[in-house]
């Protein structure tokens, strides 16, 4: 199965999906005109992974800013991971926030609150992580 690499745009996240490791990394800011269009390939990749590889999934998030439609897309994406987890698969979501960034920490906690899957909110220092 192929990996998926999306480079960061002016208003979009950088995303890398590693099929062999089962790791999805998302980084940066997201406020595209059409969030659904942007996230579609990532949803497709996840469906293929679930069907073809069917192994564990780790989602690492280093988010700096999300607009409302991107929030909704990410919400749906984690929802899909939650379904997969509830089917008995290993899933881990790591939400990283810069140590001083209370807003992004709070955003992570808002996501965490509603999800019934392993979801941790962790501080990191830029340049030493990622």
């Amino acid at each position, binding site marked *: 199965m192929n990996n998926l690499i999306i480079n960061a745009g002016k208003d979009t996240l950088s995303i890398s999906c590693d099929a062999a490791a089962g790791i999805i990394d998302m980084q940066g800011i997201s406020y595209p005109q*059409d*969030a659904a269009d942007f996230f579609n390939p990532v949803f497709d990749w996840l469906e293929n992974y679930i069907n073809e590889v069917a192994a564990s999934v780790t989602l690492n998030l280093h988010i700096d800013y999300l607009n*409302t*439609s991107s*929030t*909704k897309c990410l*919400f*749906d994406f984690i929802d899909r991971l939650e379904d997969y987890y509830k089917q008995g698969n290993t899933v881990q979501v790591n939400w990283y926030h810069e140590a001083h960034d209370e807003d992004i920490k709070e955003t992570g906690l*808002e996501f965490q609150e509603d999800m019934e899957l392993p979801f941790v909110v962790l501080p990191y220092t830029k340049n030493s992580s990622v």
Partner: protein
Amino acid sequence: MNDVIDPTMKKVFKHEFIALDKYQLISQDLNLSEDELRKNYQMLLESYRLLLQNTTKITAIGDINQKKLFEAFEELERQKAILYQSSILDYLTQVYNRSHIMQIFDDAFAQNKRYQHIFSSILLDIDDFKVINDTYGHLTGDLVIKETARQITSQLRETDSFGRYGGEEFLIVLPNTNAAEAMQVAEKIRTTVAETTIGEQNLRVTISLGVSDTLIDPSKSQDEMLHKVDLALYKAKENGKNCTVTYTP
């Protein structure tokens, strides 16, 4: 109602719109059995519960991000103000730097040419500054420049603009002021500086000043006008320093 919703939103909220469509289908078909109606009703209830939950969540996250955005915007404005200040101020004296005082001088010159608004300029220089530097070192030299700038500032009127023109040379632009009035300001500055002691060594310095206005000097260019006031300053130095000279054609 659906038609007025942005298609992008329809894509993002596709699950919610499917629930809405289902609701419309069911509400149109009331020939369902009681059991079917109950089942559909419960399904709808669950869809709406989830929808409400998601909407609340997304709104909360949206608000956090909006706050973050506004904070970033405020920080940007703060940094812009700091950057602007540092771009117009002289680092040592915190009075206008050369480029900014020249901008003010150019504006006053343009106003004079267009509307005949009179203005004066004072060019001044610390006397024997090289001796101070050579005797006491550059740090003391800097202190003398800083303190002299502070004393000059204290004697200016609110509408006057003041900047460091060169090493120990300063330029003052006095709008709506003729040379006689500028002379009074210059003399107040000169005596204040002469009476001030500076630093632990109680140093005293004097300044020489040249004054000119746009009536006695109808120069055609800014450079020409600056040259004339510089000539007046030169004459003040020639007259033995610690004095003010008004330009005479």
